[in-house]
């Protein structure tokens, strides 16, 4: 298994950097290889990524999510099996170090998709993130709960509105 790691220092507070990163569905606005993201449910996202003419869709499960600290995921794609962590470290109150570490278990795709290319792409996309969030400066209100081993823990005790009676 190979691990790729890229880092960038972002000139926003850690909360802003984290909050923007959790807005997964906004990634296509500033990342050139992310075509579409759907938050299927809090711990599951669907990604459509593309590099030139090559596209790939996969689901990712968020295994761990700790506000202002880190998000870990694993893909559910048998041809693009990987796991990763994005971590946020405060440099000072207005600056944050963002590190993406991706571990690739299997990577059976077109031959042009090599690990060095993936590393360059990750670095470029992280730079896109830096430019975007520094330019916008504010990520707004986001979900601040935690996920541990794929399971949610909410900050507030507000269950979803559902038909709560017995079903047959």
């Amino acid at each position, binding site marked *: 298994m190979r691990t790729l790691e890229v880092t960038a220092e972002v000139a926003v507070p850690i909360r802003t950097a984290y909050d923007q990163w959790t807005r997964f569905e906004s990634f296509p606005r500033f990342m050139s290889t992310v075509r579409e993201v759907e938050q*299927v*449910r*809090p*711990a*599951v996202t669907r990604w459509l990524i593309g590099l030139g003419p090559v596209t790939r869709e996969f*689901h990712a*499960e968020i295994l761990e999510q700790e506000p202002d600290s880190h998000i870990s995921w694993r893909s*559910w794609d*048998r041809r693009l099996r990987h796991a990763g962590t994005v971590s946020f470290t405060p440099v000072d109150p207005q600056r944050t170090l963002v590190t993406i570490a991706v571990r690739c278990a299997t990577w059976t795709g077109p031959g042009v998709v090599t690990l060095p290319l993936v590393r360059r792409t990750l670095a470029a996309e992280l730079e896109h993130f830096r430019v975007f969030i520094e330019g916008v400066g504010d990520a707004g209100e986001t979900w601040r*709960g935690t996920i*541990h*081993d*794929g*399971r*949610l*823990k*909410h900050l507030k*005790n507000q*269950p*979803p*509105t*559902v*038909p*709560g*009676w*017995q*079903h*047959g």
Partner: protein
Amino acid sequence: MRTPSHEETPGELTRTEPKDWAAGVPAVRKALEYSLSETTPRRTALTLLTMNQVTGIDCPGCAWPDPAPGKRHVNEYCENGAKHINDEATSKRVTREFFAQHSVSDLAQRSDQWLNDQGRLTEPMLKRAGSDHYEPVAWREAIGLLADELRSLDSPDEATFYTSGRVSNEAAFLLQLFARAYGTNNLPDCSNMCHESSGAALHETLGTGKGTVTLLDLQHADLVLLVGQNPGSNHPRQLSALEETKLNGGRIVAINPLPEAGLKRFKNPQKPRGVVGRGVDIADRFLQVRIGGDLALFRALNRLLLEAEDAAPGTVLDRDFIDTSTSGFEAFSDHVRSTDWDQVLTDTGLTRAEIEGLRDEVLASDRVVVCWAMGLTQHRHAVPTIREIVNFLMLRGNLGKPGSGACPVRGHSNVQGDRTMGIWEKMPDGFLDAIQQEFGFDPPRHHGVDAVKAIHAMHDGDVKVFLGMAGNFVSAAPDTAYTEEAMRRCRLTAHVSTKLNRSHVVTGEAALILPTLGRTEVDVQDGGPQFVTVENSMSVVHQSRGKLEPSSRLLLSEVAILCRLARATLGPDTTVPWDTFEADYGAIRDRISRIVPGFGDFNARVAEPGGFALPNPVNEGFFLTETGTAQFSVNTGEAPHAPPGHLVLQTLRSHDQWNTIPYTDDDRYRGIHGSRRIVMVNADDLTELGLAEGDLVDVVSVWGDGVERRAPGFRLVPYPTPRGCAAAYYPETNVLVPLDHVDETSGQPASKSITVRFERV
């Protein structure tokens, strides 16, 4: 037209080797053969190519969920769904001439298969009191007659309103609204006979009666347990999801009394490996458990997991989940640790090594899904069994995280949605308060009757009018002779139906057949073309739009029938805008959005491609139980064991059957052809009982009430069912199921554990 097959005459039985794989090219061929024998190539193409598509017809056959929009095959259906939809789309018609030719007593001698085969009903028919014939009647008179009868009752509780799972959300909402405006909570439904035990167990332990998994969870689980279900025949599209599970590296263990073809191997006809290859192996491990041995199995499995934790502390159980999100662990643990191995092996018919093998599968898996169907729910200890499965899931934290959870596989297209819409005899005050606030009348607060209690009430003369919305209540219900007598004691029985079935010919003094549009048909009202909505087994609510020209110009939609009946019964002072509802189903959905939690902005959300998913509290980190935590439980209950000379019988479907309606006398996967009046018995049991293959016997059930229940004229077939266990088809063997032979918590009939003996004819 096929030859009528009378109920008590066994056909010519032939046998072939049971199949060890399901689907493939033969499934496509059989589906097309049946479809084209029923209707034209054009209508067949129209139904099949729009079936389960985003803007198409939701298959009325089962509640299995559809892939996300954009991920569906052009042919997004299974063999049985194709047969079912074209059974409805048939070009055959039942006309007034048919009823003139056939008396009710003549029709009562026919099988459900023959009745179904006559085609679509075309106009309202009335059997007057004292008459032996149905005669045509105008809609106004038919509905007026039913309304008059309802108004004449001493109490609204003398009527009961049954719902089958084909009924749309809109019609179900209107039915419960009408019943409550009229003054009763007598709302039995088919859930009472299929998954009531699942709902009761899950609601008590997890705070939700619905399953917690989605298709994605199933496809990405490390381990899937298929318990008491036969996906190859009863929900074949599940096999496509299980194929994905296997291709993703997941493993599957099947736990079932019968080694069904669909549990072994699946040849996906949409993929080259399914057409010319050997397909995909489904179960990596098969545990042939005795009928009703599942509680003992899971209790033993849980004991093994606790002992594995003892041996390697901190490595087996999810202590964080148990400590923070559950209650009752200590009592559960104490109870399970006392499990007696000898009893487990007797109850399950398995070896200890087999159960330990299952434990090892579990220990090697981070994410586990358990699927089940009526092999678990139709027992006297069904609720304890399902609660024990919840215990199992909780031990290793297999709830509320992706790739894990509980998956009760519901069988009928909108059975879950109908309950969501308020079809239940015990709806909570919050729902009734919302009805009151929205419509300005006070719904009755006392509980109504479920299916079993409704039958008793009709038998005792306490219920005098029965209205069935879809379904075939008489054949679906247990204790056929008692149920039929109950129906015959009613003053009026009425059924909203698409095709003829036994419930139309076992009647009250008077009877009505109210023919309705099928799911396949275009529905145009004063407000223009309408669509309906349904909720699948994984809580996705979506549209269904009919495509075919209606079978008759005199058909009314279910919604229209209910609106007209409500107007006629409740009179001009009703506070419910029935006219508006009939003209525009969107107006019904607007009201649903204000009454049913989770349906806010219903019309806009269901207009989205693929509809919307109702959230599951468990997956959002909430357990809406009394304690606010998931509840471990202590479960007792005896596995069924028959006394000497007897066997435990389960009733089941054949492959060529949809609910109560067989399409042919064949059961292709099990290799049984030409007759449905057979009993599958272990060859060693046959020998021990002094019987032989092909012997003709009466099947007699044994129950504590002293009533003899007899199903005459069955052939014995040696089959690889566990020792002491037997299997036969329903509805033919429903006659053997005592009405009060139920799970005591859910009240669901225990149709899968009947003690029987054979009497040679």
